[in-house]
């Protein structure tokens, strides 16, 4: 009887503890001001990307030649470009392209990197082959490899995503591999094998969930890297082709008229800085949150 009662007591204490833990976690989450700022920025940009295009009053492709290169005004909040297109709507539509490229690249590299990393960590012979390929890809600077791939594939948005995914997959694969190698040596993996689990189940059912947290952090950084690399590619003319707006090719257009129309370089520049900074702050914060070793120094 006594044990039953004490068990009931124990569970209520445990529930309280769990609640406290949750509160503590939440507190830690918001105590990291930089991470919250980063997260809010990204959230804001996401909202702009998703619903902004429906709110802007001007068609981003509509050229009004008599309005070309107008400074910011009530009619054109951020001014117009050299073809008289409204800069605000071009930037907002451009965010769809830029954020879309960044997000797709983060998603594709996560998936591919996960597959490569997990199998490389489980099978030694695959490890040698896959990691040497990754080393090879990583030894070429991202921009150079991106330009080369774009030259080979031809310029369009889909190819930008493909090229950047190829560029960044090795980074994810490395991170996943190193996390998975640690997991693979744990007793619970051997115990699952002794319970009769198949290799597939061990890899996807037990190793994969243990690599999710480093993956989330890495994916955030890849997102930021992809945005900046896409902008760089577009700036160099090897990215998203005109007339589709992306922050990078708006910058490219603005470069020619930088002394006459500062708004064409400043505003897309600010957007790139904001998104990349936001993602990096978010990624740093997430890393600190997940890795207890870096926590203590912060507070």
């Amino acid at each position, binding site marked *: 009887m006594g044990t039953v009662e004490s068990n009931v007591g124990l569970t209520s204490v445990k529930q309280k503890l769990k609640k406290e833990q949750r509160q503590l976690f939440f507190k830690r989450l918001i105590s990291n001001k930089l991470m919250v700022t980063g997260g809010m920025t990204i959230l804001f940009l996401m909202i702009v990307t998703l619903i902004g295009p429906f709110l802007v009053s001007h068609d981003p492709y509509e050229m009004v030649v008599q309005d070309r290169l107008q400074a910011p005004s009530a009619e054109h909040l951020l001014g117009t470009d050299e073809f008289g297109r409204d800069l605000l709507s071009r930037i907002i539509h451009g965010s769809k392209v830029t954020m879309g490229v960044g997000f797709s690249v983060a998603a594709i590299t996560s998936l591919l990197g996960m597959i490569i990393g997990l199998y490389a960590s489980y099978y030694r012979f695959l490890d040698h082959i896959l990691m040497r390929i990754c080393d090879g890809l990583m030894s070429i600077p991202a921009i150079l490899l991106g330009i080369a791939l774009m030259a080979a594939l031809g310029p369009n948005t889909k190819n930008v995503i493909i090229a950047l995914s190829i560029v960044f997959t090795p980074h994810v694969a490395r991170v996943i591999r190193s996390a998975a190698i640690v997991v693979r040596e744990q007793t619970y993996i051997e*115990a699952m094998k*002794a319970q009769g689990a198949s290799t597939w189940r061990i890899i996807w059912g037990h190793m994969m969930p243990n690599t999710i947290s480093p993956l989330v952090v890495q994916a955030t950084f890849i997102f930021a890297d992809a945005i900046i690399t896409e902008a760089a590619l577009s700036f160099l003319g090897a990215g998203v082709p005109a007339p589709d707006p992306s922050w990078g090719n708006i910058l490219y257009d603005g470069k020619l008229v930088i002394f006459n129309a500062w708004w064409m370089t400043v505003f897309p520049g600010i957007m790139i800085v904001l998104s990349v900074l936001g993602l990096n702050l978010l990624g740093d914060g997430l890393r600190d949150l997940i890795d207890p070793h870096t926590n203590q120094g912060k507070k």
Partner: protein
Amino acid sequence: MPKQPLLEINELKTHFHTERGRVTAVDGVTFHVNEGEILGVVGESGCGKSVTSQSILRLFDEKRLAQYDGEIKLKGTNLLELSDEKMQSIRGNDIAMIFQDPLSSLNPVFTIGHQIAESILLHQNVSKKEAYEKAVEMLRLTGIPAPEKRVKEYPHELSGGMRQRVMIAIALSCEPQLLIADEPTTALDVTIQAQILDLIVEINKKLNMGVIFITHDLGVVAEICTRVVVMYLGQIVEEANVVDVFENPLHPYTRGLMKSVPQIDGDRSEKLHVIEGTVPALDNIPKGCRFATRCPFADELCVEKVPELREFKNGQKARCWHAEKIAEEDQEREDQYV
């Protein structure tokens, strides 16, 4: 009528391919386990106990790392001849295993209910809900209080002893015929150790399941085992009933182990007995008797020629040239005391 052995191991050899060449970690081990029997496997670190147990389940990577020779027969089927798929259906279902470290034997990202249910779903054709109900039932069987609530908890919320109970629940979830317990109590403190041992004995009786209990703790062996196999450097050096092993050990190594156990009522000023030296490395095995380098009885014969495992009275077996002499000496000493 002699019982049919549940598991028969004949001349099992496990070789590993290492950077220093091929190493034989288990070298010609032969023993059997009967139904409903607890067999103790004893020996110091590095003697091949764990390798033997993991070889039974063929847990080593056979493509690159390990190679098995001999026979492992479970009720007549040789496990070493089975395909990988067949072997997978035996693991967990017919033979289950508990590991030494309960703290790392459970996956931290899943609830314990999920993990027990998963093992059930691996081998039995039941719905997820039924598997969960069975998981609760298994936890209750292992004596975990309030199992309905515990199934929803994560491993880090449980103590070491609780986690070992969960491991036992997982191992028993498919009602295996044979349970291999690889030092299941080594990482636990003494009171919890006793509870886990009681649990294993209770389940062994209830389910009439064969148990291979691997340990280096002779006290535990005396407590729960019916028969004992003593291993040294990948070989069996002595095999006997638990009483014979403790009353008249025939192999000098077994005697050394017995003497190394501290006596609670003994003279405390007396130094604890130590078996001199360490286990030789596997790539540097002595030519004759493997224990000769550390044996107080060793002579030229021992250094030159490998002794066979010979049978004595009561089915006691020992791998020693001087077993008779040792037994006689023991007898004389006892006579003196009387």
